[in-house]
């Protein structure tokens, strides 16, 4: 198994190693200086395939010819025509590599790494200015490499890019190699709810919280109301109340939640009947429970 000693990268005493484990892929975020050092170390090791963002290619060959050459050289059993289809290279297959876009060249690198007979692959910033298609295709290549028992290590400068590749990433700094904590539980309060998910016919739409006037429960369905339109939402009204309470929403009635921002006035029709009037052209009137009459006034003033 190939490995890279962390001490050689950071230039300090350290017992850790970056290991190339067959069938696994590790994603490590690190400063650019370390990336260059590792790339240099791997260049002189013939057992590790170095996948750079833009691999040099034979400019006089076409995409298909280059793929055929790679397949033949590495004795790959993969069919070149299948690869062309899977990696969306159909329109490019007869184009000379000198005339291909960087997107295609980058993709050719992924394929080369995937088809190579090397057991260990080091990918350096593989998603550097990658298109959405290429991000998908790099994931595909990673999966294919895992399946064939290759060991992949991806090193990248950008944490965001690392998280695009894996939910579990490592960070290398002068203290050494450490997994990046993602513990969702502690982060929950920081995750801000910005939109609600609702259904409209066969579409799933996302509604900005500030656009919502009120939410009602009617005939077992939860409906989100935005200026005369109603959208069906998953879950129960109680759940919605819990999710939205800290965002300026208030459950003014057993079947209604209002957006306090959109409340214009409160009307008391009689001693026990109250309505909340919405700030919309229809001046929609939402029932207000007797028990909530005082609380909503407090909230409307101080919210």
């Amino acid at each position, binding site marked *: 198994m190939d490995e890279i000693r962390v001490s050689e990268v950071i230039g300090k005493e350290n017992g850790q190693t970056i290991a190339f484990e067959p069938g696994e892929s590790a994603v490590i975020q690190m400063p650019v200086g370390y990336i260059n050092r590792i790339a240099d170390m791997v260049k*002189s090791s013939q057992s590790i395939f170095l996948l750079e963002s833009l691999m040099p290619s034979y400019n006089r*060959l076409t995409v298909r010819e280059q793929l055929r050459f790679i397949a*033949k050289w590495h*004795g790959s059993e993969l069919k070149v025509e299948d690869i062309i289809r899977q990696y969306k290279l159909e329109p490019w297959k007869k184009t000379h590599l000198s005339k291909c876009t960087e997107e295609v060249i980058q993709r050719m690198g992924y394929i080369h790494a995937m088809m190579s007979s090397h057991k260990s692959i080091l990918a350096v910033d593989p998603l550097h200015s990658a298109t959405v298609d290429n991000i998908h295709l790099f994931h595909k290549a990673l999966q294919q490499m895992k399946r064939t028992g290759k060991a992949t290590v991806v090193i990248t400068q950008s944490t965001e890019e690392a998280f695009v590749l894996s939910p579990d990433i490592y960070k290398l700094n002068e203290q050494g190699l450490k997994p990046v904590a993602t513990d969702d539980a502690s982060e929950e309060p920081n995750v801000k709810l910005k939109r609600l998910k609702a259904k409209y016919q066969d579409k799933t739409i996302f509604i900005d919280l500030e656009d919502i006037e009120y939410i009602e429960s009617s005939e077992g369905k939860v409906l989100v109301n935005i200026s005369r339109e109603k959208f069906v939402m998953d879950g129960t009204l109680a759940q919605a109340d819990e999710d939205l309470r800290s965002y300026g929403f208030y459950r003014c009635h057993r079947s209604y939640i209002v957006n306090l921002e959109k409340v214009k006035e409160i009307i008391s029709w009689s001693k026990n009947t109250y309505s909340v009037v919405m700030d919309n052209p229809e001046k929609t009137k939402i029932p207000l429970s007797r028990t909530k009459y005082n609380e909503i006034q407090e909230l409307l003033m101080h919210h």
Partner: protein
Amino acid sequence: MNTGRIMAIFEKDLKEFTRNAMLFTTILLPIILAFMYSRMGGEALPAMLVYLIVGVAFSAILCSGIMTMMAEENEKNTLRGLMQSPASMLDILAGKSLVVVLMTAVSLIISFLIMDVAFEWSIASIGGLILLALFFLNVGIAVGLTVDSVATTSVYLLPIMFIFGFTPMIEMVVPDSDHFIRRLTDYLPLYQNISLHGEETTVPLLILLAWTLVSFLYVTWAFRKRMSDEVK
């Protein structure tokens, strides 16, 4: 040696060779010369002119071809993804050698047909031709392994072409056959090939063998050096 890999490189480089104007036009060089010489005199061409064509073909196609192809790989770093062991490099060199040998053969056969070469090819002269080809191939590979760009190959290529390829031209530059330069150049490989068509064959063959041996030492040194640079 892995035949699959050698063939992969052979097919790739055959495409690259024919699509590279700089390399492809070298094939025409001996043919054009042959055409010119065949128009010059009515009677059969002297061995010297035939071997001048051979020298041009070997230095301009065989030697320069493989040198340029290797230099281009070095310059563009295209070999990195292919290398796994020193054996991969041998496969690469073998595949490329096949391409240049094929191209040289094609060019020479056409040239000979144009010139209507009439003299006898003895076993000794054919053996001499093979040794000469090995000499040029080895030198080309050795330089190709050491240079890092196509531009630097011309630094090596020009002296190689003038000294070893266009050897008979020296007679025009230094007409006095007793001049020490002429006595020295008498030992150059191409002259041995010409002598092989005379009576004495052992000595020229031995001298030629010595040149080939030296070229083998050169290429072995270049290969070792390259391998130790790769795995630093």
